[in-house]
């Protein structure tokens, strides 16, 4: 009887030690970014590649870094929304740094949304999930330089921003 107890105790101690969960695992789904996909205006089913797109948040000087670069070239981009405000405004500068000034075009999109915080874990704390405003999810305007909008059509694909595995906004140009 005593030996059994002793064995159980020793076993329990062996398993009780050092299981660190102080650091939030990178694979844990936390606050998601808004995922944007680009499509061809002439053929809405074909993804279109943007070249040297720079996205700058309101009041910021640096562009959003996506896949290691602040000059985005590709058919999709993810941008972080503000977790402490219900609006986030971004400048979308297409062909940034192009020597031909006529090719550079800037559009502004302001997102309106509501936020809700959800518990993740002790190490990660909480995450914020967003729901785009059902009436005016975004406001698309041209920049100060009136050179026309480079985005010809913007549509919300999914207004609940809960994971980064899906497209929330579609931009046609």
């Amino acid at each position, binding site marked *: 009887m005593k030996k059994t107890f002793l064995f159980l105790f020793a076993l329990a101690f062996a398993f009780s030690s050092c299981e660190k969960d102080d650091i*939030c695992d990178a694979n844990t789904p936390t606050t998601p970014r808004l995922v944007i996909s680009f499509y061809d205006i002439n053929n809405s089913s074909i993804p279109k590649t943007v070249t040297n797109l720079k996205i700058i948040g309101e009041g910021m000087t640096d562009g959003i870094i996506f896949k290691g670069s602040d000059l985005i070239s590709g058919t999709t981009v993810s941008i972080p929304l503000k977790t402490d405000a219900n609006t986030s405004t971004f400048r979308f500068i297409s062909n940034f740094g192009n020597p031909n000034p006529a090719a550079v075009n800037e559009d502004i999109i302001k997102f309106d949304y509501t936020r809700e915080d959800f518990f993740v874990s002790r190490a*990660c*704390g909480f995450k914020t999930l967003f729901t785009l405003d059902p009436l005016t999810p975004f406001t698309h305007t041209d920049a100060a330089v009136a050179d026309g909008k480079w985005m010809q059509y913007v549509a919300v694909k999914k207004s609940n921003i809960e994971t980064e595995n899906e497209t929330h906004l579609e931009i046609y140009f």
Partner: protein
Amino acid sequence: MKHTLKSIFSICLILSLFFANAQETAQKKEADVSKTAGVIPDNGNSKMVKLTAAKMTDTIVVPVKTNRYGLRVGVDLFKLTRALYDKDYKGIEFTGDYRLTKKYYLAAELGNENKTTDDERLNFTTKGSYLKAGFDYNAYENWLDMENIISIGFRYGFSTFSQELNNYKIYNSNPYFGETAAIVSGEKFNGLSAHWLEVVAGVKAKVFNNVFMGFSLRLNTLISNKKPDNFDNLYIPGFNRTYNGSFGVGFNYTVSYFIPIYKKKLKPEEATTGNKK
């Protein structure tokens, strides 16, 4: 630091158990000596052995060995004094045990805790009461009228409590707009409960008269717990923290008073069977 403390406790515990074993084997040897002497029949010593056996029964009868039975009540000094150096903690635990048989004790702990946990990303306050009930098995062979205890036991624990989320931080793996400050919440989750099992290893030593000092080390594992919506039971009164490993750990340091209720005389047969075992 936490782990050093843990390992020190475990070493102490293992050593104390070895001590218990050492005591028992020593006694076994004694019993064995008398036994082997009795078995050898043909070298003329048998008569002498019988004599000593008769003498032994005589000596046992004269100073009658009695075991005292009763209720022991105590308080956990560790929880009580922790409030002095930890401003985020208030707690009290009463302990009690009742001797059922020579080796078995009914045991229980009743307590209340109020603890604020300040973590990297969370700050919350847990308040609640708990009850643990079970038994202790005394593995220590006492000599004469000693009443020391080196015990191993089981407990079933139950706790009702509330959690209050004071503030929290949002995890953002892409802090483009900068890390946001902690958000003050103040949300309270009431009516929570938890059940768990504990294995207890403990030592109690008689200091003087009926006063005992002791400590115990506990390993516990949750059976079930009612979690709040959109939060978790990271700390449970009586159980301790629920993270960092699959087992929880507990500790108490008690001073207790024994209230004798009745005495049981130890019969010689019982004494000898006890020795043989």
